[in-house]
């Protein structure tokens, strides 16, 4: 970037003053006049036929405006993700069958939230129980009870990439393992919420849907499709959104039902999920069982990989059914593995549906490949770093097509690994570990190293526009949606960089389907690289138009027109007095006196930027843990992350993404797991049972970056939203196993809770040393 550029600087976030003073409005904070409140009645059975629902008692309860079941709604089943076959369609309220505990089957609307909640308790449901099905592998066994008999099996999706016949050879040994990548909850601190007002921008028959969404356009389309409205009559707005991590990517049935209620009752209706609802209703993440085999030589050269995975996709296939395709494309990780044979099945079970959660399909790939590489290192008695080095792809191999079909743009994995090891002081860590082991330190020290590559921005197109308005304010619009990432800040930086305007002259508009013509949203770490590039390119187009106008009016050559130092407009280079302000330029642009060949029009440009393909960020992490051999308590004491997301626009925003990502990966390794009992009852439906790490459970982080710009977009940027999680999870996992390795322990499935670790220690054979 040019010197003097604001790109690459840690610019404080424009979003923050409102958030810091309590002025920012989240969906739950909105209370228009006449507001009614909805409460959902949810299935208490994992799997049952609904023999009857009696809402009579609820209807009579104080303050109740109405109580409805699927029959009253009359809404068709919807695919809540576009690739889902119709046979798996999900009714917004369960009609004949309930398929997981927490599935909504009736709704009550009342004057206050408390009245709605109390009345919902009075709804009586008559269930005819059917067998629960929790285990995805069991769900695919012949004779398993079927969730969707019309589908003929519980198989919801299948992805495979076959190796050439005979390609799985040339090895001296094969290491193998079964790895469970357990089910976790995204658990944003803001649960799901929706507020629907009848009417949309003067259209009385439309609706305005305020929702906790990463993809307001997706919410708009879901509501429009369910209610039979033209999408143009549905205005979806995501105001301040309190974290999503993928789980707010797809629309929820409650959005549709609440919209139906608002239209039916002719008044605004709001629904705010409680935490216990959130932990059973919001999509979960991961939940894979993986069988990996790695064939390699005695010297440690990888020859082939065979991977089998069963993904639990939950009761209604949604985004989760599609995520094994990411796992497949990333199966060989950052390594040169000549042959890969991959097969994954997605199985429906009577559990909460699975969706995207930070990393979405890639942590599953990375954790498995890193685990099998560690097992191979143990088998060869080779340092795990050394084994990785031997097999990493080298920078001159890019673009590189993996055996499972990913075409990776660029990478320098050795460099990221070197930097991570140096920052961590890897050799010193190993020396300290040896000393501590020798003196029999009851705190077992473990060091874990991961190298990862992931895929971002695969949905490669996004809308962006820039417009200089009459008063000189620059309005940038983007089809993505911010929920903590700081898009307003980064897009303002991009506009400022090109047009020279100060931040207070820029207004970023997003997350409102009436203010932005179209868009996809914030998923798969795509916003800066794609929407940011769209804003950047349109800002350049606006600048070029403005320069031509200024050159014409100021009688100078276009080459001599530059942005004014004070941000006020354009000027002739070296002659600040010969200038046009942005308001003057905006007025001139629509006027008559324009350069030859330029038609009058707004000083504006829009684009559907398409980078054509995905980008592949990468990095290396080093985790240091201490395991208390007496209590089994495993603590992350240091974490070093070197991530390469291409060119960095705002290091402060990047740091935020990396820190949060590391924490969620480490939390999966050490603390978090969604559990069901054998009848399909959730056992982790509150924050006492589902343990998010607090400030005392994670250390300060040591982060750094290498910058390998992608050639695919003008910013050179790749996604950073998920890298932290993808890199940290295997490193922390590996560190815990490393700590336990003197006890002969080679593998344990996550999470490494004190009880699990303590049992493993207690049951392990005494150390041979």
């Amino acid at each position, binding site marked *: 970037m040019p010197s003097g550029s604001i790109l690459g600087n*840690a610019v*404080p*976030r424009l*979003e*923050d*003053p409102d*958030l*810091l*003073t*309590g*002025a*920012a*409005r*989240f969906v*739950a*904070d909105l*209370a228009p006049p006449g507001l009614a409140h909805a409460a959902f009645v949810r299935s208490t059975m994992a799997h049952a036929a609904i023999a009857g629902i009696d809402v009579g008692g609820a209807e009579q309860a104080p303050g109740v405006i109405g109580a409805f079941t699927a029959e009253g709604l009359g809404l068709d089943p919807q695919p809540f993700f576009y690739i889902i076959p119709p046979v798996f369609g999900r009714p917004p309220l369960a009609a004949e069958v309930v398929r997981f505990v927490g599935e909504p089957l009736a709704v009550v609307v009342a004057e206050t939230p*408390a009245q709605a909640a109390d009345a919902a308790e009075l709804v009586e449901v008559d269930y005819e129980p059917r067998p629960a099905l929790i285990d995805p592998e069991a769900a695919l066994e012949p004779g398993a009870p079927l969730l969707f008999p019309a589908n003929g099996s519980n198989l919801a999706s299948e992805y495979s990439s076959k190796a050439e016949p005979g390609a799985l050879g040339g090895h001296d040994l094969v290491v193998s393992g079964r790895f469970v990548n357990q089910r976790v909850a*995204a*658990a*944003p*601190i*803001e*649960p799901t919420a929706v507020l629907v007002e009848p009417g949309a921008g003067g259209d009385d028959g439309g609706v305005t849907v305020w929702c906790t969404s990463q993809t307001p356009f997706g919410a708009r389309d879901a509501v429009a499709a369910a209610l039979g409205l033209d999408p143009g009559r549905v205005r979806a707005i995501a105001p*301040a*959104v*309190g*974290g999503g*991590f993928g789980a707010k990517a797809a629309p929820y049935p409650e959005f549709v039902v609440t919209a139906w209620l608002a239209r039916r009752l002719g008044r605004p209706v709001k629904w*705010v999920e*409680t*935490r216990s609802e959130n932990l059973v209703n919001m999509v979960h993440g991961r939940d894979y069982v993986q069988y990996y085999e790695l064939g390699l030589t005695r010297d440690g050269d990888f020859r082939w990989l065979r991977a089998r995975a069963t993904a639990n996709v939950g009761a209604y296939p949604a985004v989760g059914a599609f995520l094994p395709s990411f796992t497949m494309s990333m199966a060989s990780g950052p390594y040169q593995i000549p042959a890969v044979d991959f097969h994954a099945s997605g199985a429906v079970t009577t559990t909460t549906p699975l969706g995207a959660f930070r990393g979405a399909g890639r942590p599953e790939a990375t954790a498995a490949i890193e685990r099998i590489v560690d097992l191979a290192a143990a088998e060869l008695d080779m340092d795990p770093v050394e084994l990785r080095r031997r097999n990493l792809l080298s920078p001159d191999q890019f673009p590189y097509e993996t055996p499972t079909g990913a075409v990776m743009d660029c990478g320098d994995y050795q460099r990221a690994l070197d930097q991570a090891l140096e920052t961590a002081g890897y050799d010193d860590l190993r020396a300290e570990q040896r000393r501590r082991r020798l003196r029999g330190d009851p705190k077992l020290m473990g060091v874990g190293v991961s190298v990862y590559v992931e895929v971002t921005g695969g949905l490669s197109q996004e809308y962006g526009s820039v417009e200089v308005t009459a008063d000189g304010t620059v309005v940038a619009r983007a089809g993505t949606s911010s*929920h*903590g*990432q*700081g898009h307003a800040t980064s897009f303002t930086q991009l506009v400022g960089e090109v047009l020279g305007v100060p931040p207070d002259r820029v207004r970023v508009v997003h997350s409102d389907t009436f203010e932005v013509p179209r868009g996809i949203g914030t998923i798969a770490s795509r916003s800066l690289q794609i929407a940011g590039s769209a804003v950047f390119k349109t800002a350049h187009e606006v600048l070029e138009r403005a320069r031509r106008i200024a050159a014409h009016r100021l009688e100078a050559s276009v080459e001599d027109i530059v942005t004014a130092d004070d941000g006020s407009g354009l000027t002739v280079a070296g002659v600040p007095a010969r200038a046009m302000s942005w308001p003057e330029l905006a007025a001139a642009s629509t006027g008559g006196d324009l350069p030859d060949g330029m038609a009058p029009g707004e000083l504006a440009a829009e684009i559907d930027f398409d980078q054509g393909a995905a980008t592949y960020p990468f990095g290396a992490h080093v985790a240091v843990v201490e395991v208390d051999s007496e209590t089994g308590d495993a603590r992350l004491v240091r974490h070093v992350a070197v991530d390469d997301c291409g060119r960095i626009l705002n290091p*402060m*925003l990047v*740091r*935020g993404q990396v*820190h*949060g*990502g*590391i*924490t*969620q990966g480490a939390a999966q390794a050490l603390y978090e797991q969604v559990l069901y009992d054998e009848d399909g009852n959730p056992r982790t439906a*509150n*924050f*006492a049972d589902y343990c*998010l790490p*607090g*400030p*005392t459970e*994670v250390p*300060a*982080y040591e982060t750094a970056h290498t910058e390998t710009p992608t050639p695919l977009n003008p910013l050179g940027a790749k996604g950073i939203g998920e890298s932290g999680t993808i890199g940290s999870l295997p490193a922390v996992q590996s560190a815990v196993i490393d700590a336990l390795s003197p006890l002969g322990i080679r593998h344990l499935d996550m999470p490494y809770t004190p009880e699990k670790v303590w049992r493993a220690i207690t049951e392990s054979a005494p150390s041979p040393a």
Partner: protein
Amino acid sequence: MSRVHVTCTVNGDETEFLCDGGQTLLNALRDELGLTGAKEGCGTGDCGSCSVIIDGRLTCSCLVLAPEAQGAAVLTVEGLASGDDLHPLQQSFLEGAALQCGVCTPGILMAAAALLDRNPDPTETEVRYGLAGNLCRCTGYDKIVRSVLAAADSQRTTSQRTNTEETA
């Protein structure tokens, strides 16, 4: 159900409101008084996003019934800044990028304010334990902890300066 009349001080102002006997203070602040800074992240005392300071004590307002606030002095995030001047904690959170989605931030600011009241010169570990009742899903806490330490520093410098000015 008959409504309960409550008189208390909120952010320094004498305030009265009507509420249901079973309504939480969090609810009353948000629904009756329109102070939506405090958030409900769990409703069970596990996340701290509803934190307010009642008579000097950090409290989960989701676990307090509104009528219990009778006669109390309640401080919420809306009362931290004076006019347009951010509180030193808010200022250092801004500079240190200690928030992302910001939904946990009001609660964390209140916990940090209560901590610095008690202990103006905390260590990193004391800050972490001081905020142990608050969950943040976005930041990983690092930048929050650093920002609280920075605010403590700047508050001490300011109060030293004031002390010197007073003695001068």
